[in-house]
């Protein structure tokens, strides 16, 4: 168990190094970074001065060394747009994104788990049809469209929620619902199909043969096994959400990293883009690690497979 944990942590650290290398070279791959970052009408002298200031005139290995030593200390350079350390700005924005992602995830799970279990346990019934419809709609309706419709109905016409911004419980409802729609559809389908599969397992028949009541069979025998599948998808999905949703954060003017990615790319703010890419990747790696840990906690068979 400890060896497994250690090896997974080491793997994750190596992966983050790989991410850093990619982040460094991707900017250089797109051509002359100074020319890309500077406004199109900048004078050659200005570009040259900028190139000097950013260290782009140094040999590539030296640049790489500077970048890596800086990055390992959390220094990704200064944001060109905000004129402040890029990493600090990203970390300032992260809580808003984490908050929204968690809210979206909780909303998706609260709806998807009961719905998926009900649909999967009664295949062919009306409940199952509802479950499958939600799965389909959730995965196919564009969330920015839903966001606009909800603003128009709940904020503008009914006035129940603020139209945009972050502050108080009311402000998070609409963006969380819009952002949670896709994972909701995905989880519903996943839970339904997992329940359909698990309920035919021999150990479920054994559970019934013991005289256990339906709810106990579902909570202790079926759902426990479904959760193994669910945990893996929830982890990956949460990682995606933490990368920030460009559309939803932009529509609701939510001050998270998703909106910032949009701004940073438009402003050609490369230090900021690099910091954002690194932080997003770090969260995905971290969540994968946590997912693997959750597996080990749920499924005793994984413990010894080092």
């Amino acid at each position, binding site marked *: 168990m400890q060896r497994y944990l250690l090896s997974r942590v080491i793997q994750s650290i190596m992966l983050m190094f790989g991410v850093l290398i990619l982040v460094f070279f991707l900017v250089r791959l797109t051509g002359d970074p100074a020319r890309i970052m500077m406004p199109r009408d900048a004078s050659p002298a200005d570009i040259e001065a900028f190139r000097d200031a950013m260290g782009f005139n140094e040999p590539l290995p030296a640049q790489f060394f500077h970048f890596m030593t800086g990055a390992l200390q959390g220094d990704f350079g200064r944001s060109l747009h905000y004129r402040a350390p890029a990493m600090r700005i990203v970390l300032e924005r992260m809580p808003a994104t984490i908050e929204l992602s968690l809210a979206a995830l909780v909303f998706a799970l609260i709806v998807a788990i009961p719905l998926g279990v009900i649909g999967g346990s009664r295949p062919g019934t009306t409940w199952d049809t509802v479950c499958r419809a939600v799965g389909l709609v959730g995965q196919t309706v564009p969330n920015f469209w839903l966001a606009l419709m909800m603003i128009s109905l709940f904020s503008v016409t009914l006035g129940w929620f603020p139209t945009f911004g972050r502050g108080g419980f009311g402000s998070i409802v609409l963006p969380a619902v819009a952002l949670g729609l896709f994972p909701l559809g995905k989880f519903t389908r996943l839970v339904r199909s997992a329940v359909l599969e698990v309920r035919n397992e021999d150990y479920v028949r054994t559970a019934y*043969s013991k005289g256990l009541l339906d709810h106990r069979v579902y909570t202790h025998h079926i759902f426990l096994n479904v959760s193994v599948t669910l945990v893996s998808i929830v982890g990956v999905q949460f990682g995606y959400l933490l990368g920030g949703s460009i559309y939803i954060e932009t529509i609701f003017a939510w001050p998270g990293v998703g909106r910032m990615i949009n701004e940073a790319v438009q402003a050609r703010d490369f230090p900021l883009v690099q910091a954002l890419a690194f932080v997003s990747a770090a969260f995905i790696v971290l969540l994968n690690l946590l997912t693997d840990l959750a597996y080990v906690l749920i*499924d005793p068979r994984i413990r010894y497979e080092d």
Partner: protein
Amino acid sequence: MMRRRKTQGHTPHPPRSEPILSVKDLSVRFNTVDGVVHAVNSISFDLYRGETLGVVGESGSGKSVSMLSLLRLIPEPPGEITSGSAILRSGDESVDLISLSWKQMNRVRGRRVGFVFQDPLSSLNPLISVGKQIREIIERHNIARGSAAKRRSVDLLKQVGISDADNRYHSYPHEFSGGMRQRVMIAIAIACNPELVIADEPTTALDVTIQAQIIDLLMKLKREMGISVIWISHDLGVVAGIADRVMVMYGGTAVETGTAETVYRHPRHPYTVGLLGAIPKLHQDNKRLVNIKGTPPSVYSALRQCPFAPRCPWSFDLCTQQRPPLFALDGNAVSDSRHTSACWYDLEHNTRRTEGAV
């Protein structure tokens, strides 16, 4: 190989009163997209207290489905019990299992009837420790709660021969060998002192040396606890060794019933004759095994004739016109040792029957 272990399993025949389980006219079908599968066609049998009934037949003969359907353990839908009754008697109290509500059924399962399934690996939940899986049934039926339930679970593990039971309580099924897992299944089956244990091919997934251990264990517990056992198997040797009475199934029907002794020594149904003839015998130098020609009947059509008629060397026109009823072979005395055969041809006297059904 026929193992006849006369010394174990067979209980001396006490004067029997009423059977503890009477199944009458049980029919089960599966409504599938390919059509209706007639899995069990009107079978009837009795089980007496302390007795082991061996149910033998090939795959698809309906032996498992018929026994599992008694406790509604077949998937419904597509499964459907279309007729029959199954009276479970205990003292003066008797219930018809088929007409019980789901809630009432849940009080019978595990409490009055225990189960041992074929594959102990897939039949135990891989994510729950074996101890908890035993404890669960004890707490469900209010035999004991909390630490008392845990103690009883550990005792049960000891009773089924698992050493170091205190620590093994916390083990998971994958940490056990096949034989040990089946011992855990047996511990679950007997946890609430049931009157009846249905063992659905409990040794099929195990290797031969372990098979013998599991058979011995179940028979020992049966004797000690006075449990009646329905032992489903396609292994005629195993059944010969342990069963007091045998029911041979073919095409979803019971074709022959009787004491193990009678059925094995004097089979009176052509299918049983063919089945016993197909067993290799050590003392005979056979060049080739005798087999039953043809294939089992399609289960997609309702049964209107003898299911064995197409493969039967003795069949005549009546066999394909009318389904044979059960004929009593030892007079009409209704007793637990009654020998019956569902065949229009009287093998004993080499004559065709027209009447005399039970």
